[in-house]
């Protein structure tokens, strides 16, 4: 059980003034959604939280220890990141790709063992891509690659999940399945934070929300307090119609 704490954090978005510093904490069991229009800094925020880029100000802490003081390998054992973009350099199979999730857990001389293979296999099974295990990644569809990326982080087995638009490219069923997986990770005591473009998925699956405005302003809190139509309309610069279906609010853009 690890908590991710953000103190007075200002992310480094080029050519943007500092805006509001973020101070919040993603506790074990919580599912945080990050909402905001294109270019608001959602991806930059997640990369900063993962220690892949430095903040302009402030600190990111895991269990009270600054990220910068932890080794990369130690961070990778606690925190996993599902990237929005992926580059395939050299050909690799689906199974090999999932297996690299074990990297932070293996010593330099260690080969992947039976247990690592079992974890990778289970993750592929969970994301419904196990039948593709021997295929080259370059031959997969966008949605299949997305599921593979999530399976790789599942193989990594982090206590803190950061996911950059995890439902990108996914069909409706797999969108639901992936959100259920992330919710399940939280229910098992892990902390989850994800960027989303779909307000309705956020409303249904997230218990906390962080709204990032393009000018650097931000507000955050429990989801029910944040899902105010006026605030969301200002966030996206888009008029919304609201309804309630199945106990969750639903937002539809109107002309």
């Amino acid at each position: 059980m690890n908590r991710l704490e953000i103190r007075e954090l200002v992310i480094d978005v080029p050519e943007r003034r500092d805006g509001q510093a973020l101070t919040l904490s993603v506790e074990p069991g919580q599912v945080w959604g990050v909402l905001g229009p294109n270019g608001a800094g959602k991806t930059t925020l997640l990369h900063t939280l993962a220690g892949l880029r430095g903040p302009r100000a402030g600190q990111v802490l895991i269990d009270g220890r600054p990220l910068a003081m932890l080794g990369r390998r130690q961070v990778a054992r606690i925190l996993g990141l599902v990237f929005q973009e992926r580059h395939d350099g050299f050909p690799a199979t689906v199974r090999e790709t999932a297996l690299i999730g074990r990297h932070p857990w293996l010593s330099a001389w260690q080969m992947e063992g039976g247990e690592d293979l079992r974890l990778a296999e289970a993750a592929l099974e969970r994301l419904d891509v196990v039948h593709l295990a021997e295929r080259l990644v370059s031959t997969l569809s966008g949605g299949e690659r997305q599921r593979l990326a999530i399976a790789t982080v599942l193989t990594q087995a982090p206590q803190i999940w950061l996911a950059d638009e995890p439902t990108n490219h996914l069909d409706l069923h797999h969108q639901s399945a992936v959100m259920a997986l992330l919710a399940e990770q939280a229910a098992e005591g892990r902390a989850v934070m994800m960027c989303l473009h779909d307000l309705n998925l956020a409303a249904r699956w997230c218990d906390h929300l962080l709204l990032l405005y393009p000018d650097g302003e931000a507000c955050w809190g429990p989801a029910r307090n944040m899902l105010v139509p006026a605030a969301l309309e200002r966030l996206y610069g888009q008029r919304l119609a609201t309804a309630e279906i199945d106990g969750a609010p639903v937002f539809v853009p109107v002309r």
Partner: protein
Amino acid sequence: MITPRRSLWPPLAVLALLGLTALLVSVTLGSAALSLGDVWAVARGEGSPLARTLILDLRIPRSLSAFAVGGLLAVAGALMQVLLRNPLADPYVLGLSGGASVGALAAMLAGLGGAVITGSAFAGAFLSTLLVFGLAHGTGSWTPSRLLLTGVVVAAGWGAVITLMLAISPAERLPGMLYWLMGDLSYSRSPWPPLTLLLVICLLLMPLGRSLNVMARGPLQAAALGVNVRPLEWTIYVVASVLTATAVTTAGSIGFVGLVVPHMLRLVLGNDQRLILPACALTGGTLLVLADTLARTMIAPEQLPVGVITALLGVPTFLYLLYRSR
């Protein structure tokens, strides 16, 4: 279904066997043909003095040099391809060989010989590496395409300098310079420094293999999986430069091995660096031993530059493999 991970040893054992066979063939063949019996006699400490000199003083050192140089070039190529995440990268394309050539030719032009040529080539290779990586790094970070482009342009620049030097050099020095440019193992002295380096580097790279696998998927992904990207990038870059500089100073500028061998092996063996790097050392070595044997024997007693053979053999093989691959 869980399939056990392929063991690394069977393919390496096969490649090692091929390498030994190639070495044996290269020792028996030459302008004066020796039988396996002659070789065996020398190996037992017998045989005629001529055969002893031929085998122990000439052919074995030369064959071992060829093996070491081929291995060094192939491993250097494989490393640069991982660093740039681009199968086009190799010491030749990135201008390292060009820098070394300019260094060596400058020494030859000045009428200097032996160790000075070696030192000068080494300095040229390093100058070129610093130039390419320094310029490509610039103010930002290394992007593979920028690095590759810088390398290609620097290589073109070296090419022009080489042409200039050839144009102004006295006619009697030209053949030696041309041979050096196309790769020539008759310049090599002791095979042990490059061979030792090859072995040491392969052992040092083994524990880095999995990190390199992750690096091949991009620096961000690698960092997210716990790799210290920047130190690893510098390690790859320094190691690849030392390997190239050593290879080029031993045998002149031999293109193609660093590009083709890793690529061929990836098509057959996949892209696990823990397997690919030692396999590159063995296959690159084998290839150059065979190429050098051909270079020595095809128009014996005259010799061809080995670089010509590697290209003539390598180009069709490579194109065929590329055409067949999925």
